[in-house]
């Protein structure tokens, strides 16, 4: 961001290699972790993992997590937590399912309605946090329970006793909006690629990868948009300021309350987006959707360099953090390790990835 040209080189500055400059940015630190994890799996895992279908296979859960993680990262940078996003996925999924299946609304109405609904819940969260001055941890924790419980009650009412609401896929069949939120993008392209031998095919001749799952595109789009907002708009400055020091920000004229409430709404909308995508993909929703996703989202954001205390972090960091997390979770299945060790490896890999990333950053930037 240093675009000014000082008249002369300041004698109080050492020259700094470009690489060191880059590593200082919180978003780029996480890249070291990604590279380490890739190297690890390249050595230990089945080669299928890094085939096109393998990559798409681990990117799909990473993308779903990542959409949540980016929302959570923005909120964390703004100095608050939202523990209710996992439950929000279930609750928004239920709402969306009811819109589509029970009420038979078309997607063009159901989807905006779901977002509005999620945003309202987010606004309630935010308002309680702001008005009461209680920590957001405890307020959104209450909503973690409340929304999860309401999802169960709602599902039972909507289905007459079951915990699973199904039939979404049949109902939305043929809706023109469906391809934006479910299935694979660019199927034609991949068919063509397969025909021309660029993509592996099954014996039947169908491409092994029918397209890029839409959530991956959403994930990338949201990461870019969030990065743009954080680094290039006044709103981004306000988010950093609100999280860095609420009093100082408010004293400097940042509308802290407005910023925080908007972030709560945004996070809830991210959860709603994940809900819509997964419900449409699975064709059903149940009471356990999104279980513990709030936790994973925070993990991904922290791996990506966000501070829990607020005021520092990046969306791109959360992007790579989600990929690290997704890769470790799925990757172990490709290796020969005994699966009983799964959690030990998950924990160990996470620790090594962040330690490595941290060590690299310190070495490169010369901090001690």
């Amino acid at each position: 961001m240093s675009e000014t040209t000082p008249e002369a080189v300041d004698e109080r500055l050492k020259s700094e290699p470009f690489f060191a400059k880059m590593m200082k940015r919180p978003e780029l630190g996480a890249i070291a972790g990604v590279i380490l994890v890739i190297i690890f799996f390249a050595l230990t895992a089945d080669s299928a993992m890094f085939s096109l279908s393998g990559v798409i296979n681990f990117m799909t859960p990473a993308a779903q997590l990542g959409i949540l993680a980016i929302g959570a990262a923005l909120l964390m940078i703004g100095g608050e937590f939202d523990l209710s996003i996992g439950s929000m996925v279930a609750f928004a999924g239920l709402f969306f399912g009811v819109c589509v299946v029970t009420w038979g609304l078309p997607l063009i109405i159901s989807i905006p309605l779901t977002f509005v609904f999620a945003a309202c819940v987010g606004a309630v969260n935010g308002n309680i946090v702001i008005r009461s001055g209680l920590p957001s941890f405890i307020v959104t924790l209450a909503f973690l329970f409340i929304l999860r419980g309401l999802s169960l009650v709602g599902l039972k009412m909507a289905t007459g006793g079951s915990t699973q609401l199904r039939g979404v896929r049949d109902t939305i069949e043929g809706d023109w909006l469906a391809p934006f939120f479910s299935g694979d993008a660019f199927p034609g392209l991949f068919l063509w690629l397969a025909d021309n031998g660029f993509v592996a095919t099954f014996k039947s001749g169908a491409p092994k990868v029918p397209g890029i799952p839409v959530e991956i595109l959403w994930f990338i789009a949201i990461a870019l948009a969030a990065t743009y907002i954080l680094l290039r708009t006044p709103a981004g400055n306000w988010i950093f300021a609100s999280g860095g020091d609420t009093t100082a920000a408010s004293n400097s004229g940042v509308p802290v309350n407005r910023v925080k409430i908007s972030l709560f709404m945004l996070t809830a909308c991210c959860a709603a987006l994940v809900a819509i995508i997964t419900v449409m993909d699975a064709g059903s929703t149940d009471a356990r959707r999104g279980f513990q996703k709030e936790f994973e989202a925070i993990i991904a954001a922290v791996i990506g360099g966000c501070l829990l205390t607020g005021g520092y972090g990046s969306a791109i960091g959360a992007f790579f953090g989600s990929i690290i997390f997704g890769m470790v979770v799925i990757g172990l299945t490709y290796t020969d390790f005994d699966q009983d060790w799964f959690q030990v490896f998950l924990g160990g890999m996470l620790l090594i990835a962040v330690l490595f990333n941290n060590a690299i950053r310190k070495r490169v930037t010369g901090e001690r």
Partner: protein
Amino acid sequence: MTDDSKFHHGDPTAHIHPVVEMKNIEKHFGNIIALAGVSFDVKPGECHCLLGDNGAGKSTFIKTMSGVHKPTKGEIFFEGKPMNFNTPRDAMEAGIATVFQDLAMIPLMSVTRNFFMGREPTKGKGLGKRFDTKFANEVCVEEMRKMGINLRGPDQAVGTLSGGERQTVAIARAVYFGAKILILDEPTSALGVRQTSNVLATIDKVRRQGIGVVFISHNVRHALAVGDRFTVLNRGKTLGTAVRGEITPEQLQDLMAGGQELASLEGSLGGTV
């Protein structure tokens, strides 16, 4: 001790209406009484000094003026109309810029981002509307240079600046955005010789543009150098307001120390304070 400087001093006459008038302001924090009824006003183009001992209530008072605290009792008039700022942003939008004693800076953010925090310059339109980083960096470096600080770069984090550099950022910011009233709470406390003289000169310049300045200081010389009127607080109450020329530096210093033991102190310091 010089009791005048070569600055031009404003001549606020009685018929000019104050920009801000505060009447009988009280402020309690729980069981602590920080202000016990203080009245104060600022006229356009004058520098009104607020003086007083440590803990007298100066910062608390200017915080009620700039919308940070709501007064427990008392009235605030802004340009003649009763006014109730709910947030510092309201006060800011009305044209009041403040340098708080704790500076209100975010340590982890860069100098430029702190400088423009809350009032970011933008370029582009609609969705393409964005923070104009280039312009912001230029303004920031330039304003800091005017105050006598050569920044290494506008993207250094404020938390790693020296105490005086940080204070200068806060002052430069307030001066840049101060529209009708500029409030400075001990702005020169951490500043070097050069920087202090720049700040005092800036106050003078700003006042000449018709902006009202509220200046808090513990340094009698600084106050006398730029002040037009002097209000002294003591233990949450006003000891009175004096107009420039009607009071000697010694009397003022006497008042500032709370009017006690001054004789003995004065002696032991040999006029060094």
